[in-house]
C-alpha cells in the first residue's frame, strides 16, 4: 500500500515542500530510503521503526520503500522522522480511513526519539513560511518549536509524541484546542540593558556612530586599547531604528535555520555579532558541506562588530567585500547556488599600531613607522572603500571622565536617527534603496547636490588636505546623512566640513611643508 505525506525541507534559508512517499510491499523485509537523503535523513530508518514500536504500533516486517519528492534535491535534517513514521503507519494499514483522510490536511515536521517523543529541529520557521506561501494551512510540529512557529502566521499543533499525533488524526483529541494564529500579536519588544550615556567622553566617535545609524554607514574605530571601542560598538544596536516586522521575520528565519531561535526567547533585539578574529572564512561568510549561514548573515539587520580588525586573516576580510557590496552572500556550488541575506552595519575596531599605543597620551609606542604603516595596510583599499566613517579614539582623561556629563542617552540619539530615517524613507520611496549609504551613483547625483560654497570646500579639501577624488562619493553620502540628521533639505558646507573629520585615512600625501 502507498501513503503520501507532506513535509518540507530547506535550501539555504528557503523552505520548499517535500512529499514523503511510503510504499509497503511483500518481499524480503527491508527499508530503503531514496530521494537523495544525507546521513541525518538516512538515520531516520532506525529511529522511526523503534519509535513506532515503542508507541504501541507494529513495525511492519515487509519491504518498505520511502521516497522523498522532489528526488533530485539533496535533503538534510532530522525532521523527516515524523512524516516517515506516519507514512509507514498509513501504508501498513494501522490507521483508520478517517486518519488517512486527515493526513492530507496537515504538514508534518518533527524528529522522533526512540520512545516516540516528537523532538524539535532547526529551520522550522522558514519551512512553515514557505508552506504558507504554497497555500498550506495547518502544521504539526514539535513542542520545542512552539516559539518560532508563532511567527509563521500558520495554524499549528504542537505534538508531544507519535501516539498523540495519531490520536489527533483519529480525531480522538481535538486539534482546535491549540490551533491558533499568533502572528498578529507578535509584539516587538526590544530590551536593551546598555545605554550610550554609559560611555564617557569620545564625543566624535559617538557622533560618528549616530551618523552611521542614521544613514546605514559602516564605521572603523581606531584607537589604543581601553578607549571604549568595544563599549561603543556594543551600544550601537541601541540607537538603530526599531525593528520592523519584516526585518524581524528575516532575522528569525536565519536564526531558525541555525537552530538558535529558542535561545532568544522573548527578547527581540537587533543582532549584535562579534566573532573572534581567529574565525574561519566559512564561519564568517557561511557555507560548509551543508551550507549554513555565517556570522555575516546572523548579523543581518543588525551589527557585525569585528574587533582587532587588522588581526583577521586577509582572506576573511576579503570575503566580507561581497556582503558589504550586495548585502547578501552567494554560495555557488556545481549543483546549486544558495543565497543568504547579509545586510548589516559593519563596526570595525583596530589598534593604530601593532603595540596599540601609537598616539596614546601617556604610554609610549615603540613601533617603527614601517611597522605602523604595514599594520594599517593590512586593511585593503577595496575594503576601506566600503567604510564611510573612520574615527581615531584616544584615552579619556580621568578629570574629563569625572566632571563631564555623559552625553545623550541612547533614547535621545535614537529619536534623531528615526527622524533621519523617515526623511530617507520618503526620499527613496520609489526605489529599493533603504538608506543613504546604499545610494547608487545616479541617486548621489540626484540627492547630494552641493551648494556653491560646498564645491569650494571640496576643492580646498582636495588641494590642501590631500583628500582623494576616490572618496568623493562616500563624502557626499555621509554629508547627506548629516544633513538629514539636522533636518536640512540641502547639504550645507558645514555638513561637508564635518565629514572630513571622519576621513583621517584619506589625508595621506600631505607633505611636511
Amino acid at each position, binding site marked *: 500500500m502507498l501513503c503520501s505525506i507532506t513535509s518540507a525541507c530547506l535550501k539555504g534559508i528557503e523552505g520548499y515542500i517535500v512529499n514523503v512517499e511510503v510504499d509497503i510491499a511483500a518481499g524480503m523485509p527491508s527499508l530503503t530510503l531514496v530521494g537523495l537523503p544525507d546521513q541525518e535523513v538516512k538515520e531516520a530508518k532506525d529511529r522511526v521503526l523503534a519509535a513506532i514500536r515503542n508507541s504501541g504500533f507494529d513495525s511492519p516486517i515487509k519491504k518498505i520503500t520511502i521516497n522523498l519528492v522532489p528526488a533530485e534535491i539533496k535533503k538534510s535534517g532530522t525532521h523527516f522522522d515524523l512524516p516517515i513514521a506516519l507514512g509507514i503507519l498509513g501504508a501498513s494499514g494501522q490507521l483508520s480511513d478517517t486518519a488517512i483522510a486527515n493526513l492530507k490536511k496537515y504538514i508534518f515536521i518533527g524528529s522522533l526519539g526512540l520512545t516516540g517523543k516528537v523532538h524539535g529541529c532547526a529551520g522550522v520557521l522558514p519551512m512553515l513560511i514557505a508552506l504558507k506561501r504554497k497555500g498550506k494551512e495547518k502544521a504539526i510540529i514539535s513542542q520545542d518549536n512552539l516559539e518560532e512557529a508563532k511567527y509563521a502566521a500558520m495554524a499549528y499543533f504542537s505534538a508531544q509524541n507519535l501516539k498523540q499525533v495519531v490520536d489527533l488524526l483519529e480525531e480522538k483529541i481535538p486539534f482546535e484546542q491549540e490551533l491558533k494564529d499568533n502572528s498578529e500579536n507578535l509584539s516587538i519588544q526590544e530590551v536593551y540593558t546598555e545605554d550610550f550615556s554609559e560611555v564617557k*567622553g*569620545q*564625543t*566624535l*566617535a559617538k*557622533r560618528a556612530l549616530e551618523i552611521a545609524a542614521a544613514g546605514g554607514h559602516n564605521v572603523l574605530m581606531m584607537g589604543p586599547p581601553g578607549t571604549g571601542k568595544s563599549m561603543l560598538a556594543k551600544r550601537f544596536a541601541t540607537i538603530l531604528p526599531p525593528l520592523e516586522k519584516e526585518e524581524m521575520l528575516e532575522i528569525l528565519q536565519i536564526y531558525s535555520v541555525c537552530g538558535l531561535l529558542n535561545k532568544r526567547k522573548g527578547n527581540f533585539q537587533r543582532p549584535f555579532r562579534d566573532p573572534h578574529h581567529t574565525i574561519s572564512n566559512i564561519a564568517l561568510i557561511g557555507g560548509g558541506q551543508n551550507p549554513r549561514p555565517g556570522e555575516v548573515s546572523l548579523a543581518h539587520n543588525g551589527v557585525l562588530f569585528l574587533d582587532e580588525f587588522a588581526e583577521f586573516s586577509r582572506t576573511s576580510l576579503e570575503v566580507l567585500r561581497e556582503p558589504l557590496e550586495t548585502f547578501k552572500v552567494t554560495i555557488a556550488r556545481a549543483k546549486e547556488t544558495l543565497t543568504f541575506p547579509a545586510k548589516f552595519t559593519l563596526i570595525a575596531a583596530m589598534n*593604530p599600531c601593532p603595540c596599540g599605543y*601609537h*598616539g596614546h597620551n601617556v604610554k609610549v609606542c615603540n613601533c617603527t*613607522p*614601517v611597522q605602523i604603516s604595514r599594520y594599517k595596510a593590512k586593511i585593503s583599499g577595496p575594503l576601506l572603500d566600503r567604510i564611510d566613517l573612520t*574615527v*581615531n579614539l*584616544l584615552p*579619556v*582623561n580621568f578629570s*574629563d571622565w569625572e566632571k*563631564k556629563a555623559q552625553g545623550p542617552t541612547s533614547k535621545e540619539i535614537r529619536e534623531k536617527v528615526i527622524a533621519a530615517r523617515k526623511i530617507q524613507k520618503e526620499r527613496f520611496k520609489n526605489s529599493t534603496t533603504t538608506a543613504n549609504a546604499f545610494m547608487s551613483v545616479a541617486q548621489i547625483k540626484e540627492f547630494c547636490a552641493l551648494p556653491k560654497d560646498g564645491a569650494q*570646500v571640496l576643492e*580646498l*579639501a582636495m588641494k*590642501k*588636505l590631500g583628500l582623494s577624488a576616490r572618496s568623493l562619493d562616500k563624502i557626499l553620502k555621509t554629508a547627506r546623512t*548629516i544633513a538629514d540628521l*539636522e533636518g536640512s533639505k540641502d547639504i550645507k*558646507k*558645514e*555638513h561637508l*566640513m*564635518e565629514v*572630513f*573629520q571622519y576621513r*583621517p585615512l584619506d*589625508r595621506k600625501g*600631505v*607633505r*611636511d*611643508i
Partner: protein
Amino acid sequence: MNFEEKLARIKVNSFSYLRSDWLLEMIKIFGSASEFLKQDAKTISKEGKISLESAQAFLKSCAMLDAQKEMEKTEKVGGKILFNGEEDFPTRLAEIKEAPLLIYARGDLGDTQRASVGMVGTRKISPYGRRAATQLAGDLAQSGIVLVSGLARGIDSVVHAQAVKNQSATWALIGTGIGRCYPAENRELARAILDTGGAIISELPFDAAPLAHHFPRRNRLIAGLSDLVVVVEGEVKSGALITAKMALDQGLDVMAVPGPIDSPTSGGPNKLIKEGAGMVLSASDIIDAIPSNKKFGLKVKKLYNESKAPSEPLTQQEQKIIDLIGEGSKNIDELSLESSFDIMQLSAILFSLEVAGVLICTDGKYSRSKFN
C-alpha cells in the same frame, strides 16, 4: 687619476664595513688602488692591521663589484662619481678627518663652498619640532643658505621640503646608494630636491641597501658639507647627536633648538645647550654663526626686513580654538569638552584653520603648524 685607477677605487670603496681613512692609508702604502687590489689577503691583513677574515671579506666584496657598471648606472640617472683627490671633489669633504674615498652625487652640487647649514633631528617628530624645523628651515632657505640633511623621515624631510618649497638648493646625504630611495615615501621629495637644484649624495655603492651601520657614517658627511650643524630635535641617544659629535670633531659650530624639558625628543638639543652649544631662537641666530666670509651674497637683509605675510585675521572662535590647542596637540573630543562647541561647529572651525595652514592634523590630533 687614470680610468683604471678610478675603477679600482670604486671597487675598493665597495666594502662599507671599513673606514675610508683606512682605505686612503692603504692606497698610500701600496701606491695606488689598482696596486692595492692586486695584493693578497695576507699582505693586506698584515699591512692594514686587520684580521685575515676581514681582509678576505674585503677582497671578495671588491671582486664582486662591477666598477664599470657602477659608472654606467650612475651616469644613467644623471649622476657623477667624484673622486677624492680630483679637482671636482668638494674641498671641504676632502678636509674632514675620515674623508670619503669618493662620492656618488646626483643632481647639481654647484659651488660646494657656499654657506650651508646642516639641520638634523629625530624621525619621531613632535608637533613642536615640526613647527621649529619648518620655521627655521624656511627662513634659512629664503636667505639662500644650502640646507644639508639626511632625507630621513621626520625633521630631515621637513628641512628638505622647506628648501624645495622656497626654491633653494639642498643637499641630501643618504644612508643608501644613490640608486635607491629610503624611506620609499620620500621618493617624491627626492625628485623635488633634484628639480630645485639640489643634490643627493652618498659614498656607498650605487645599489647599497639601508643597513644600520651606514647611517652613523653618513652623518659625518652631513657635518662635512656644512658650515655649522643645528640639532632641532632628538633624543639623548640619537643619530642627530652623532652628527653633532662629528661636527664638533671636525671643528664646526653646533647649535641646538631648545625644547620643553619634559619632552624626550628635546633631550638631545637641551643637553647640547647645557654643554655649551649655541642656542637657536630664530634663524638669525644661525645666520650670525655662519663664518663671515661666507655671508656674501646671502639674502639676509630680506629676512630681517621681511614683514609677516598678511594672513587673514582669525575669527574669535578660531582664536579660541588656537588658544586651547596651545603648544601641544589636542583631538576634537578634548576641544569639544573644553570649548563647548559641538562637533559640527568645531569641524567647520578646524577645517578652515587646517586649510589655511594654521593647524595640522595627524592621527586625529590637531597642533599648530607654525610659530605666531
